[in-house]
């Protein structure tokens, strides 16, 4: 009495659902719900975290990310232009930079700037400079490749038209090519902004004053006073307030550009 292929597939699907229900029931009976509630949803801790989690931590995360993104974008544009330069040493420098900073942990860059540079050169950056430089240096390595791909995706005819109207190479680049390139790479740049938002947490390794806390540091500090997972859940949700809309924005921009894909590598 062999079952048909379709019947077998149907039974297989049922058995999977059954398995899931069984597992869910076992967990529901065995779990200590009161402990889970106090661990994740300690309302007293939540109450203590507001409003500082928004007015200080979330605000600082946004500021640090914006600083790093702005510096990274500028440096990334320079690196992209170097990578496309007709002067070979510029290309080499850009390639080495990009490969180096894409290949090492961002945390290492933060440690280097926060502790290495002061010891080696007796230069002490303030918190804003540190986070801007560290995030920017790492972000630039990724954004350079994206920007380069965007510049190369601008049709050759655009440059020819610009040059035919008497624009110099540099003028055509600034006036015609780069504005169009940024339109093309808006979706991947938005993704890069999401990554930097999360990487801004790495500043936690540095000693921060209370009003300099960003989300991760804030969550960690709250944790030490209130031993539960609640602070982590709260700051995690705060990250999502930033990253989820950016993710939707990125996908929206991608759809709007007609799914024109840019190869980044």
């Amino acid at each position: 009495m062999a079952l048909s292929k379709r019947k077998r597939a149907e039974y297989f699907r049922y058995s999977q659902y059954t398995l899931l229900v069984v597992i869910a029931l076992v967990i529901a009976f065995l779990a200590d719900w009161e402990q889970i509630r106090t661990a994740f949803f300690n309302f007293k801790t939540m109450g203590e975290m507001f409003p500082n989690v928004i007015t200080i931590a979330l605000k600082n995360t946004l500021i640090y990310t914006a600083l790093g993104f702005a510096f990274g974008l500028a440096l990334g544009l320079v690196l992209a232009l170097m990578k496309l330069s007709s002067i070979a040493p510029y290309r080499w420098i850009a390639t080495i930079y990009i490969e180096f900073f894409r290949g090492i942990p961002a945390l290492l860059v933060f440690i280097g700037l926060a502790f290495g540079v002061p010891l080696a050169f007796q230069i002490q950056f303030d918190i804003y400079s540190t986070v801007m430089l560290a995030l920017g240096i790492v972000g630039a390595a990724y954004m350079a490749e994206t920007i380069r791909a965007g510049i190369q995706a601008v049709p050759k005819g655009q440059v020819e038209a610009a040059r035919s109207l008497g624009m110099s190479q540099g003028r055509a680049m600034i006036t015609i090519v780069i504005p169009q390139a940024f339109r093309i790479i808006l979706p991947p740049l938005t993704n890069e902004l999401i990554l930097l938002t999360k990487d801004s947490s790495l500043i936690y390794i540095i000693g921060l004053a209370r009003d300099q806390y960003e989300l991760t540091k804030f969550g960690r500090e709250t944790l030490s006073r209130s031993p539960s997972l609640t602070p982590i859940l709260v700051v995690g949700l705060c990250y999502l307030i930033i990253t989820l809309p950016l993710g939707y924005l990125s996908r929206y921009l991608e759809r709007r550009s007609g799914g024109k894909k840019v190869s980044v590598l």
Partner: protein
Amino acid sequence: MSEISVEITGLKKSFGSLDVLKGIDVTVNRGDVVCIIGPSGSGKSTLLRCVNLLEEPNDGKIVVNGVELTDHDVDIDRARTKIGMVFQSFNLFSHLNVLANLTVAQRKVLKRGEKEAQEIALRNLDRVGLKEKANSMPAQLSGGQQQRVAIARALSMDPDVMLFDEPTSALDPELVGDVLGVMRQLADEGMTMLVVTHEMQFAREVADKVIFMDGGYIVEEGPAAEVIGNPQEPRTQEFLARVLDPTHHGPSDPA
């Protein structure tokens, strides 16, 4: 000013080992319309692109309005402002609206003020019949409209000579007439024009001189009525027969 607008002598151009232009001499008198015809791959587009140095010639001399472009010390950007170019694929700046397409080079290159640049732009848009499209984006226009805007953009620089690289080849058939109409009007106004085209009717009616190119050489040149109406060279005859009466010919000879 001399009567000669464009003078090309001994022009050679190769891409790698492929010789595309093998020694070309062309003279265009001021106010003349010269049409360049020939099969694809004959080098006619390359010749045109050499006239504003979008392609760097390997050998030969190009003089436009008394300026030798092949001189290494020439300010090519400055020279190009006097040479209008119209492309097969229009190449309007896709991030700028029509008016900005016409003003951007006036402002950045010729350093004209905003008001002056806009006045000149609107006057030229009017010439091509698209004044009401000043605030449209290129993507909102039909191919024929885009090409007319491209012509107006080139005209806004007040060029001495206009180059047209197969300006109607990318257009739907019903839109070709609008663009040719604008070009004919330009010719009537006395613009010096060098036109690479497959539109034999246009060449016959508007051109002062027709040049037939094949295999990197000029095979035949002369008044339109002679080159198109009564070609002497067998290659010209063969080409024109295919173009003018395509249904009465077999597949081309692979040789």
